[in-house]
């Protein structure tokens, strides 16, 4: 097939020689087109116009001699194979031309059609092979130079870089020239340190492919993690490595981050205090579990992993746990208590949603709450006991009070009805008088005590808005005589707050107690002054009640001033109940009382009414 399309150019100035050659050609390639140029110029003219497959070139032409003729053709048409036609005496030159690229030479006087045909066929084939080789080399170069991965070739013995591609130049920042003056070892940071292992020296000689993890330093100083894959090649007869360089800095960083976060996760789960965490799949198999304490003593995570989580509880707790966890797989969060032998656990479970929304796993956190449970139970028992005791005591106090008051009221009734006018014996009259006094005293004491008792138990005493000014007025009126006897000046200022939310009886009792105290413990050296004022606050009213009386030594009595049966002055009327009752009445209404006092200067009570 090929012979039909064959186009042969013969450049030959000797017509006799041409005739001969043409004869041979017609014989060997009957379908070939033969072009004849008798000068080099004419020959080149054909080459430019026609698609010539092979050139037969005579060495002695009028416009070209010997090797220069070949060059002038080959430089312009390197792909067209050339066969030299030569006379007997020129074989030496012909041999030389073979070295620089001619396919063959034929001695004209010593040839025939068969020799010519063979030479032409070989020449064409050889040139095709050469062409392919060239192409593949070019492709190879293209792959090398345009590879997105940095690639270099280096000499194994000298550790010299022989070739680098564009990507390597771009990635490292070194120019090609700089690269070619470097060794592979020099690319590593700290390469100046003696004995630092070079990737070359650490290789096993003779192995074809190697993967190395090393650090390289760019020209700008950045240190990068790289993975080098090498492949042994021959370059110009020397053993060399072709090294493909992967920059794995980012990958390594990501790996490190992953490792750290995994470590963190492990730290958290393994140190989960007082309990454990677990991940279960749908059939309650424990896929992962960790923690400081598992609910079965002396058992570690491995005891639970890959087993049914619920199997580590005894019935009926087991069924309860199952029921709760089943609900978590249905999308609910669950918090419940489960016990194992004498331990109690609080188990919290949440569903773990897959990206597509279904629940295949759940997360469990269990905490040992045995101690808390025990405390709670103890507390509950204590509260119950205290409540019962309190209720018993209250009942007891009611009964006692009643039983005390019943005969006392009879005594009072008798005294009321007793008519001493009929008695003449003065001794009996005196005794009866004392009897009456004792009874009244006893009655008063009992009543005071009962007041205390009733206030303490009457948390629900009715609150109503009260006009302080009016109530104070009424209280003053009830002790008018005593106040007048002391010639007291009383000033009030209720402008800022005139109303408080309080129990009427208690407020009357409080103010009465404070006024009578002020009167009782006034100084003999000066006229009594009482100043009462109110102040509005964000959540209530503050009442200041100040006198200029004897005062109380607060350093000594501060803690006891509102206590029961605390008396700070030697006064006949003093029973040590007044301030106790005041304090109780204020506290039971949610208020507060405080006191400021200086001996022989006066006392100020500060009462806070909460709204």
């Amino acid at each position: 097939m090929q012979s039909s399309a064959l186009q042969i150019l013969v450049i030959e100035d000797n017509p006799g020689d041409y005739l001969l050659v043409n004869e041979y050609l017609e014989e060997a390639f009957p379908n070939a087109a033969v072009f004849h140029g008798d000068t080099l110029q004419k020959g080149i003219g054909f080459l430019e116009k026609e698609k010539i497959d092979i050139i037969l070139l005579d060495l002695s032409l009028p416009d070209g001699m010997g090797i220069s003729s070949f060059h002038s053709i080959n430089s312009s048409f390197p792909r067209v194979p050339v066969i030299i036609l030569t006379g007997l005496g020129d074989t030496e030159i012909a041999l030389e031309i073979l070295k620089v690229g001619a396919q063959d030479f034929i001695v004209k006087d010593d040839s025939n059609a068969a020799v010519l045909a063979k030479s032409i066929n070989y020449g064409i084939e050889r040139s095709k092979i050469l062409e392919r080789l060239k192409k593949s080399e070019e492709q190879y170069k293209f792959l090398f130079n345009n590879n997105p991965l940095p690639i270099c070739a280096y000499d194994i013995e000298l550790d010299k870089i022989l070739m680098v591609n564009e990507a390597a130049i771009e990635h490292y920042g070194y120019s090609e020239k700089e690269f070619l003056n470097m060794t592979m070892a020099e690319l590593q940071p700290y390469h100046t340190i003696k004995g630092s292992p070079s990737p070359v020296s650490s290789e096993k000689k003779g192995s074809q492919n190697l993967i190395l993890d090393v650090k390289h330093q760019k020209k700008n100083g950045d240190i990068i993690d790289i993975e080098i894959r090498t492949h042994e090649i021959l370059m110009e007869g020397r053993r060399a490595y072709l090294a493909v360089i992967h920059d794995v800095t980012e990958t390594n960083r990501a790996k490190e981050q992953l490792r750290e976060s995994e470590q963190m996760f492990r730290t958290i789960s393994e140190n989960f205090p007082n309990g454990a965490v677990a991940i279960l799949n749908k059939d309650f198999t424990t896929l992962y579990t960790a923690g400081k304490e598992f609910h079965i003593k002396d058992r570690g995570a491995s005891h639970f992993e890959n087993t049914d989580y619920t199997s580590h509880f005894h019935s009926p707790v087991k069924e309860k746990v199952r029921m709760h966890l089943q609900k978590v797989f249905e999308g609910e969060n669950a918090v419940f208590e489960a016990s194992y032998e004498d331990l109690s656990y609080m188990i919290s479970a949440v569903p773990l949603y897959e990206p597509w929304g279904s629940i295949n796993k759940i997360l469990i956190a269990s905490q040992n709450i045995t101690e808390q449970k025990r405390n709670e139970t103890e507390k509950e028992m204590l509260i119950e006991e205290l409540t019962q005791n309190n209720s018993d005591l209250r009942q007891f106090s009611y009964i006692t009070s009643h039983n005390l008051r019943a005969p006392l009221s009879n005594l009072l009734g008798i005294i009321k009805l007793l008519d001493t006018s009929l008695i003449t014996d003065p001794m009996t009259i005196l005794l009866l008088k004392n009897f009456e006094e004792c009874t009244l005293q006893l009655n008063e004491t009992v009543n005071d005590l009962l007041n205390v008792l009733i206030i303490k138990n009457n948390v629900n005493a009715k609150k109503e808005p009260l006009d302080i000014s009016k109530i104070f007025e009424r209280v003053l009126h009830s002790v008018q005589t005593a106040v007048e006897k002391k010639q007291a000046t009383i000033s009030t200022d209720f402008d800022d707050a005139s109303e408080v939310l309080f129990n009427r009886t208690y407020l009357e009792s409080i103010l009465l107690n404070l006024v009578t105290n002020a009167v009782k413990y006034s100084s003999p050296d000066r006229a009594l002054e009482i100043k009462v004022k109110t102040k509005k606050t964000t959540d209530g009213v503050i009442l200041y009640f100040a006198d200029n009386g004897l005062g109380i030594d607060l350093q000594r009595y501060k803690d006891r001033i509102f206590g029961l049966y605390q008396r700070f002055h030697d006064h006949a009327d003093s029973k040590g109940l007044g301030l106790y009752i005041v304090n109780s009445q204020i506290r039971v209404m949610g208020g507060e009382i405080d006191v400021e006092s200086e001996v022989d200067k006066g006392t100020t009570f500060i009462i806070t009414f909460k709204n």
Partner: protein
Amino acid sequence: MINKVLCIDDDQITLVLCEMVIKKAGFANEVFTAKNGKEGLAWFSAYFSKNNKSEKQDPPQLILLDLNMPVMNGWDFLEDYLMKYSDRLPDTKVVIISSTVNPEDFSRANRYEIVIDFINKPLTTEGLEELMQHEQLAPYF
């Protein structure tokens, strides 16, 4: 003046004093007494059986009722009385006279319409004089 008063109290001295004070204050003409709730109920039972048989008699206009009593206390008496007799005696009221300090007793007393007052012992002439001013008793005086 009230015609008849029934005092129910377990304390004999209290009953004596009550009667004396009532007489002294001119509060009532007649004072009947019962020693506990059960006796109080028996008194009414006897009153109605007598009334059915023979001569008509006035019922007491007021019951002075103690709370703390053996056998049957004041509250139990009141419940039974309300169930059995109060309908037939619409004009008879109750005043509680007690030494109790239990706040529950005070609030419970408030819940009965028939209980018009609560007096803390002892019953005195002053106490009775005040009671006479009570709007439900005032018409008798």
